[in-house]
């Protein structure tokens, strides 16, 4: 059996790690995460496929590497309910609601109702000071507020993915990843005659 040739996109796990490292030094880099939000949607909407999940997802690759080759996963079967439709779509709705709340918080700062909070929120509840990553005046307050909010979302989902990776299979996160669910839903709608 021949070994599969490695391509440039097989190393995107480096990008995933770099993203979180950059956000540790300057929170404005959090905006780069929008690529991971918009690109899968664009590929699903235009191409009608999950090429992003299948080839470009650095996070999935990172879980494969840590949980697989580096042995950080127990490799136990993923609980069945985690890959059931009700949970996947339920988690997607919850995730989108949290994203909407974050955008609304950004709007409140933009409108001058709220002031900028230089902190991130882990698991949507735990406030963690993150003020060394931003100097007031570097950018409009709402730009910074979005960065803190978006980085919180990205870091929380990474931590969730790491937790399920340790307990279950390396890529358990993929079973209920909101982006994966959303793009699969789009593909199913686009290719309705085949599903």
């Amino acid at each position, binding site marked *: 059996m021949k070994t599969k040739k490695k391509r440039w996109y097989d190393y995107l796990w480096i990008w995933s790690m770099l993203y979180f490292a950059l956000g540790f030094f300057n929170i404005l880099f959090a905006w780069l995460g929008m690529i991971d939000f918009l690109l899968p949607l664009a590929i699903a909407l235009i191409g009608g496929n999950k090429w992003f*999940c299948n080839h470009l997802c650095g996070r*999935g690759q990172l879980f494969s590497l840590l949980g697989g080759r580096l042995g950080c996963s127990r490799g136990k079967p993923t609980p069945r309910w985690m890959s059931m439709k009700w949970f996947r779509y339920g988690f997607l709705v919850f995730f989108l609601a949290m994203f909407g709340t974050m955008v609304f918080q950004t709007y409140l700062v933009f409108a001058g109702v709220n002031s900028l909070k230089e902190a991130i929120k882990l698991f949507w509840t735990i406030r963690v000071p993150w003020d060394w990553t931003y100097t007031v005046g570097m950018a409009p307050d709402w730009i910074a507020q979005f960065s803190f909010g978006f980085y919180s979302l990205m870091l929380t989902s990474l931590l969730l993915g790491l937790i399920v990776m340790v307990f279950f299979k390396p890529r*358990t996160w993929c079973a209920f990843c909101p982006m994966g669910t959303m793009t699969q839903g789009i593909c199913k709608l686009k290719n309705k005659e085949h599903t």
Partner: protein
Amino acid sequence: MLSKKVARFEQSVCAACGACVKECPRSAVAIFKGCYAAVAAEQCVGCGKCAKICPTGCIVIEERRNEDEN
């Protein structure tokens, strides 16, 4: 000569993440239009690598049936 075992996919549970595609040493698995994974039964040797990596548990390795040989 076809192997005695073959991978079977429960398409309604598949997340189409592509982990199985990367793992398959025979390139027998593909993601069908972003919807679910499908196996080319004549290529599959039933090694079970895809089932081991699959995060949703939608793959089972079964005895090959007659229709798989067609």
